Structure formats: structure tokens, C-alpha cells
């Protein structure tokens, strides 16, 4: 008898999605209700998830699904950030006329896909989760259907994502062919010495995953899709799929293929260096904040990958701390974007920030904290994120990676402080609206406070990950 108790989060989410669909179909004008109710569902899901944190790792469905501390932690992070994202984008969604019943339901199903991805211990389960997640996101990207950019971004994301899924599936089939199983544990046992088939399989799967986390050179879709999608979807793109995909990176590489570390390390280092440098350089010329944050997130993913490339527990732990701090900074950044609104019109150009500090001192103060933190200037949280990563990298004497990474932070610092310059040194423009929802204000305030005072007691966040041991 399979113990279904341990997947009650996933079951709960699926049932909620189905019942919300039913409600949406039969009850007229239930959009707001469904949106609010989905937020509550995420919170309940979070509570369930935290509650069933197992003492020892648990494998379900013939070892194809696993629950342990690591997956529970990541799932909680996903659920919390999904909740925060939905809460802070509420007003945006309402005012941009994208509040349809499908919108929250699609978000929930993409979350469900991510939860499956995180727990997967089998290539097929993993692929199912990935596609559930991606399919919902394709629709979300194109959700503002009258807007030509939104449609373009949805289509672009769909086509490129399909390509990467194809590569990923091909990789899965190669691995199946050479190890005669799709289960991570069995692959680990079955694979005989290092074969080219397996290596090719790994590389193809890494390409597919790199696409999801927008690592260079598989990043091309990101700026257009980020820019074209409604901002409330961009914030999802910037955070959620990356957490899930990076977790799969970890489960996949440090699970069945741990012994082949030497083979895949070079790939990760290449992805990491490429993303760090390219993300930093390409963001300099951007005129739109969403494109800029797209490049910035490419660069940040490079740092998270650098942590994975070292092959130690510290590296993995530090990558996860990096992800957590990254998502706090990004949520805060998008909160600021949601506040740049005048008479129901939202602004997302760099020049719209001009002189913000004179009209909106508190908003620009939080924005400044976030930007300095993204740039990695001490004593803000972003610095520690990078500091931990490089501690792990230098432990393995990978000085080249460390030096390239840190130099790219200097390049990246340029465009972050350019934004600060525009906010603080330039001439002011018209005022923006002040009537933001309480949730949005609270999230911005709390997240920027966390960024600011993280240094007082770094152990609070670090303790969450210190129990993760995969090797």
C-alpha cells in the first residue's frame, strides 16, 4: 500500500485546481473569489507541506517519487514565493484586465508541476512535472491576448521551450538506452563505466534545464518573454521555474551521476561563467526595467550554478541560500515595479525612475537597498549570497571561476548603480499613485528589511539549509 499521506500537498493542490475550475465554470463573475481563494490554497498547501516534513527520506511509487528534507524545503520556498507573488500582483492583475478565472488556476497548476519536478526521482515523472509547469506558463505569458507583445512572448516561449523539451527528451531516451532504466536510483546502479551515450544524455538534459533557468547560451528567450509578458507573469518567470529547475539540476546531477562529476563539471562551469559575464554585460544598455531584470537574473543564475559546480555539500547549500536571497530580492524589486503606476497605467522604463527619490523617498529607499543588494555590496543580503558561493568555489581552488565571477559583479554593479543614479541624482518627474494595496506595501517593506538586516543574524536563513546533505 502506497502511503499517499506524504504527497498530500500535491493531492490537495490538484483537488483544489479541479474544484476551482468547477466553481469558475458554474459561478458567474467569480474571478476575484478564485484569485483570493488560490492565495489561501497556497497557504494551506504550505501548512500541509511543512507539517509532513519526514524524519527520514521517503520513497514512493517504486522509488520514482521522493520526499526528504531538501524537497520539503524547496517546496515550501516555492509555495511561499507563489503566495507572495500572487499577493503583490493582485492590483496589477485587476487593472490590466487579465483577471480571468483561468489566471490563478494556471498559476496553481504550474506550481503543482514544480512540486512534482522537485520531488521527482524518475526521468518520466520529472518530465511530466516539467511539462505541466511549462504548459501553464506558455498560456500565462500570452495571457494579455490583445497585446501584441504578450502574444509574441507566449509564442516565442512556447516554440523555444518545445525545442528544449525535445532535446531534454532525447537526452532522457539516451540515458534510458544506456542504463536501461528511467529511475534515478536504478540509473545509478546500472550505468557501467563512463559511456559516451550517458554523457550525451546528461548534456542534452542539462541543455533543457539550462533553458528553464535561462543560463547562457540558452537565454535568448528570456529578455523578450520577460518584457512582453504582463509584469505579474514576469515575476513568476523570474522566480518560480528557476527554483524548481535548479533543484532538478541538483537532484539529477548529484543523484545518479554523482560519480561522473568530472564529466559534467565543465558543462556547469561553462554555463556559469557564460551567464555571469553575459548577464552583466548585456544588461548595461537596457532601457526597460523588465529586460534589465531579465539579464540581471541570467547573471544571478550564473552565480547559483557556480555553487553547483564545486561538487560539495557546502556548494549545494550555498546555492540554495543564494536562491532564497535572490527570490527575496526579486520579489522586492517587482513590488517596486508594481508601485510605478499613475492613473492605472504601469511604467516599466528605466527613465520612469527619474528623480523618484524626491517624490517617493521610502519607495526609492527600498529600491536602492534592493539594487545595492543585487549588486552584491556589503553589508546587504546580496553580498552574503555571493560571499557564500565564492567561499565554496575557492575551497575547491577554482580561482578562475571566482575571479571571473567577482569581476562580473563589478560590471553588473555599473548598471545597478546607474538605476540608483537615475533615482537619486536626476530630475524628478510627475508623482506616481500612492494607493497601493496593503499586501504589496507589506511585502516590499518586509523583504527590503530582511535584505537590510540579514547581516545581523545570518544564521536564521543559513540554518534552513545546513541540514541538506546530498553527498
Amino acid at each position, binding site marked *: 500500500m502506497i502511503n499517499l499521506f506524504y504527497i498530500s500537498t500535491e493531492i490537495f493542490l490538484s483537488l483544489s485546481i479541479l474544484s476551482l475550475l468547477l466553481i469558475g465554470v458554474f459561478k458567474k463573475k467569480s474571478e476575484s473569489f478564485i484569485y483570493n481563494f488560490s492565495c489561501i490554497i497556497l497557504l494551506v498547501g504550505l501548512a500541509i507541506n511543512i507539517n509532513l516534513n519526514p524524519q527520514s527520506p521517503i520513497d514512493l511509487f517504486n522509488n520514482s517519487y521522493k520526499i526528504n528534507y531538501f524537497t520539503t524545503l524547496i517546496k515550501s520556498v516555492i509555495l511561499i514565493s507563489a503566495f507572495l507573488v500572487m499577493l503583490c500582483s493582485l492590483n496589477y492583475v485587476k487593472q490590466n484586465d487579465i483577471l480571468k478565472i483561468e489566471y490563478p488556476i494556471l498559476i496553481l497548476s504550474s506550481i503543482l508541476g514544480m512540486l512534482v519536478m522537485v520531488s521527482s526521482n524518475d526521468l518520466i515523472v520529472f518530465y511530466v512535472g516539467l511539462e505541466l509547469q511549462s504548459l501553464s506558463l506558455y498560456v500565462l505569458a500570452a495571457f494579455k491576448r490583445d497585446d501584441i507583445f504578450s502574444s509574441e512572448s507566449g509564442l516565442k516561449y512556447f516554440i523555444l521551450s518545445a525545442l528544449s523539451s525535445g532535446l531534454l527528451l532525447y537526452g532522457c531516451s539516451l540515458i534510458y538506452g544506456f542504463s536501461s532504466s528511467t529511475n534515478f536510483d536504478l540509473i545509478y546502479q546500472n550505468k557501467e563505466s563512463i559511456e559516451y551515450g550517458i554523457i550525451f544524455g546528461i548534456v542534452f538534459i542539462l541543455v533543457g534545464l539550462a533553458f528553464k533557468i535561462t543560463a547562457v547560451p540558452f537565454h535568448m528567450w528570456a529578455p523578450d518573454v520577460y518584457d512582453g509578458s504582463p509584469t505579474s507573469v514576469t515575476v513568476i518567470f523570474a522566480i518560480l521555474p528557476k527554483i524548481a529547475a535548479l533543484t532538478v539540476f541538483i537532484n539529477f546531477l548529484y543523484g545518479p551521476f554523482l560519480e561522473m562529476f568530472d564529466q559534467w563539471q565543465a558543462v556547469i562551469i561553462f554555463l556559469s561563467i557564460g551567464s555571469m559575464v553575459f548577464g552583466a554585460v548585456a544588461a548595461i544598455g537596457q532601457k526597460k526595467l523588465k529586460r534589465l531584470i531579465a539579464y540581471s537574473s541570467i547573471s544571478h543564475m550564473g552565480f547559483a550554478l557556480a555553487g553547483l559546480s564545486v561538487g560539495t555539500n557546502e556548494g549545494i547549500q550555498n546555492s540554495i541560500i543564494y536562491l532564497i536571497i535572490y527570490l527575496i530580492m526579486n520579489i522586492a524589486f517587482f513590488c517596486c515595479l508594481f508601485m510605478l503606476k499613475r492613473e492605472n497605467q504601469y511604467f516599466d522604463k528605466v527613465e520612469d525612475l527619474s528623480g523618484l527619490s524626491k517624490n517617493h523617498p521610502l519607495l526609492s529607499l527600498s529600491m536602492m537597498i534592493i539594487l*545595492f543588494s543585487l549588486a552584491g*555590496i*556589503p*553589508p546587504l543580503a546580496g*553580498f552574503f549570497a555571493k*560571499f557564500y558561493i*565564492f*567561499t565554496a568555489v*575557492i*575551497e575547491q581552488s577554482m*580561482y578562475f571561476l*571566482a*575571479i571571473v565571477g*567577482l*569581476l562580473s*559583479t*563589478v560590471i553588473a*554593479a*555599473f548598471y545597478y*548603480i546607474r538605476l*540608483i*543614479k537615475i533615482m*537619486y*541624482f536626476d530630475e524628478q518627474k510627475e508623482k506616481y499613485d500612492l494607493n497601493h494595496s496593503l499586501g504589496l506595501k507589506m511585502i516590499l517593506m518586509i523583504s527590503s528589511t530582511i535584505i537590510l538586516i540579514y*547581516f545581523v543574524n*545570518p*544564521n536564521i536563513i*543559513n*540554518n534552513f539549509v*545546513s541540514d541538506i546533505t546530498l553527498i
Partner: protein
Amino acid sequence: MNFPIISSLILLPSIGALFLFFINSKNITGIKYVSLFVSIINFLISIYLWFIFDQSSSEFQFVESRVWIKDFINYKVGIDGISILFIILTTFIIPLCILSVNSSIKNRLKEFLIAILLMETLMIGVFCSLDLVIFYLFFEGGLIPMFLIIGIWGGERRVYSAFKFFLFTLLGSVLMLIAVISIYWIAGTTDIEELYKLGIDPKYQNLLWLAFFSSFAVKTPMWPVHTWLPDAHVEAPTAGSVLLAAILLKMAGYGFIRFSIGLFPLASEYFVPFIFVISLIAIIYTSLVALMQDDMKKLIAYSSVAHMGFVTLGLFTFTQQGVEGGIFQMISHGIVSAALFFSVGVVYDRTHSRRINDYGGLVNVMPKYSILLMVFTLGSLGLPGTTGFIGEFLILMGTFKKSFLVAAIASLGVILGAAYMLWLYKRVVFGELTNQKLLKMIDLNKVELFILTLLALSIIFFGFYPDPFSNTYSVSVENFLSEYNDKLNNYNLQNQ
């Protein structure tokens, strides 16, 4: 555990800044009084600290240590005879900066004072920290407030200068960060006291030294990477220039003593010729550049580079005189350059011009100002009886012991220093009063008179009677050098 006096010294300005944050920005007098009060209390605490400081011991005193990042880094602060002087310099200059904002800062006063107080926290932290990571945090954290000070309240080309300052410094420091992390993995700790005892494997020392050097050289600033300093100085508001010249530059000099020389004795010995050459270039070249400036602030900025060249020269002689001279020169330059920037600020507030050619004949309208400016000019060029003389004299004495040629060339710098400072003084103060605008100039007001007199008195007092300073650091320097020589000898013995 005793009362954490160092931590309170570090934290007090931040608490003041937090308090200011909640005051209504319309309440200007309230803001000024709160910040002044906080900074003066901090000054008194540091004087008290100096008073109870045991000058006969070379150990770190008032050490506080507590776990910060679990199993990784401890928060550890403490002072010795060298760092206490820099702390007093910091707490002495900050209240004067706050006093000076009256006339120079017109908008966003509250934010300016918050930035100044945060800078105070960070700068005191730099001089107290006994852990490399903590040091790095304080050292780099200063970038944010200083960037804002230059960028928001600066002059016309403030954006360019702020960016240049930020990126130059950041670029230098990231290499230091790599070195700090490497030291953690090589030696297993970032605690400075432990590292002094353990020593660092000689085969890594040269590279680590270079990484630290890259950061300190930018901050000092040394010759090829000094170009951010004139820009930053020129564009920063008066209080910002004062902070930069008086304290920020000293963080690097202090870093050279504490880290470069203290942690990597072999590498320091190895790189002595290199340091001597670029210090000499800094002294001669920037003095010549200073001669040709037509902007007062730029001239003083270049003179700062030259004076810091003397400091690095003195520190890397590894003689008692040289190192003591270097430390004394830093303190002296902290007071003198602060005074000079305040003086430029005084006339800038009245005429809004920094060009030397716009002035001339100031002695006719501003006699008090002219007298005080003379004291500072003489202090800067190192006339006996001012603090500048003691520092330069000790440095040159130490350098003579090492190399005659280097000392001879450096002495040339003293002459050049006299040339550009006296010429500046002549052009600004003496001569005909040609510019009609200057006729309406009013002499110093009470606050300015107070600031400048205080600085002039300390320049003269410590010029005649340097004992309070030299007694404080001499034991520490002695011990520091003997440890340094021990490490070198040990290494040489092992290699024979």
C-alpha cells in the same frame, strides 16, 4: 563580560542615524542637534577609551568576540595602540563635518546627516575589526554612503565622479575578497590574532599580498590608480571631501599595516622595491601635477596623493622611525587635509568658485581666515612645529636607513610640496584684490572659526608635543616590527 565599549562605539552613530530617520525632515535644528549630540558622545567615548587604554601593552585590548555566522566567522573587534588613534581621528572629524553642513548643504539635510553617521559607524568598524571578513564588510560598506554623498550633494560632474569612485574601489576590493576567502581555506580562520600566530604559508603570500594590495592601492590611492581621487574630491561637498581625505584614505594605510605587512611579511619584504618606486612616482609626479592645478580642491587632492605616497614609503621601510612616521603622517594628514578642505569650503560657500584665479587678495577682506589658512598651509608642507613636519621627518629618517637614493628623491617631494602649497597660498591670499565679488566677502562666522581654530590648534599643539600620539603607538609598533623580523628570520633559517 565587560561592557562592550567598542561595539557601542561602532553602533552609536547607526542608532543615531536610525533616530534621525524618524524625525520629520522639516525639523532642521532638531536633526542637527541630534546628530551633533550623537557624534560628540561618540568622541567622548573614544577619548575615554584612549584614557583607559593601556599604553604599555602591545596586545589587542577591549576585545569582544561572539559567534556570528555559525562555524564560520566570529564577530571580533578590539583595538591596539595603532587603531585607537585612527578611531579618535574619526570621532574627532565627524562632529566637525556635521557642524560644517550649516552653510554647505542646502537640500536633503536629514539624509546627508544619516549618511555621515553611517559612514562613522563603518569607518570606526574598519579600524576596530579583528576579523578579515568583518573588516571587509566595513571597508566595502562605506561605498554606499560615500557614493550617495558624492552623487546627491556633489558638484556639476558628480555623477561621473561618484561612478568612478564606486567602480574603482569595488574593482580593487573584489580581489581582496577572493584573498580573504582563500586565507580562510589556507589557514582555517579569518581571525587576525590567530593568523598572526599561525602565519601564512609562504608560497601563497605573494599572490595574497597582491590581492590585498589591489584594494588598498585604489583606496590609498597609489599612483596609477589614483585618478578617482581628484574627481571625487572636487565634486564631493565639503563634508564629503573632508571624510574622504581625512579618514577614508587612512583605511587603506591602516590596512597596509594591519594586513599587508602583518599577515604577509615575506611578500611585503619581496615587494619593497615595487612599493618604493610607485610611492616615489606618487610623491614626485602628483606634486608636479598639483603645481599645475587651477582648482583649489584638485590641488589639495593631488597633495593628498603625494602625502599618502610618503605614508606607504614610511610603512614599507620596516624601521621603527619609518612605521611610526607613517602612522603619524596619516594622523597629521587627516587633520591638515580636513582643515584645508574646510577652508576651501568656506570660500566656496561664499563665491561658489574653486578656481584659484578667481581669488587673490583675500587677506584684505578675510584676515582671520588668512591666518588660519597659513597655519594649514605650513602644516601641509611640513614646517617644523606642525604635525606635518614630524611625520615627514620620521619617514625620511626611516627611509635613509634603508636606501639613500630613495630618501633623497623623496626629500625632493617635500620641496615640491612647499612650492605648490605656498604658491597656492600666495595666489589666493596675497596680491591685489582684483575680483570685485570678493569685496563683499565676510570673514569667518562663529562656527567656521570654531572648526578651523580647533584644527589649527591641534596641528600646532601636536606639532610641538607629539608624545600623546607617539606614546600610544610606540609599544605596538615595536612589537609589530619585532614580530615581523622574527617571522622573516624564521623563514630564512628554515630555508638554509
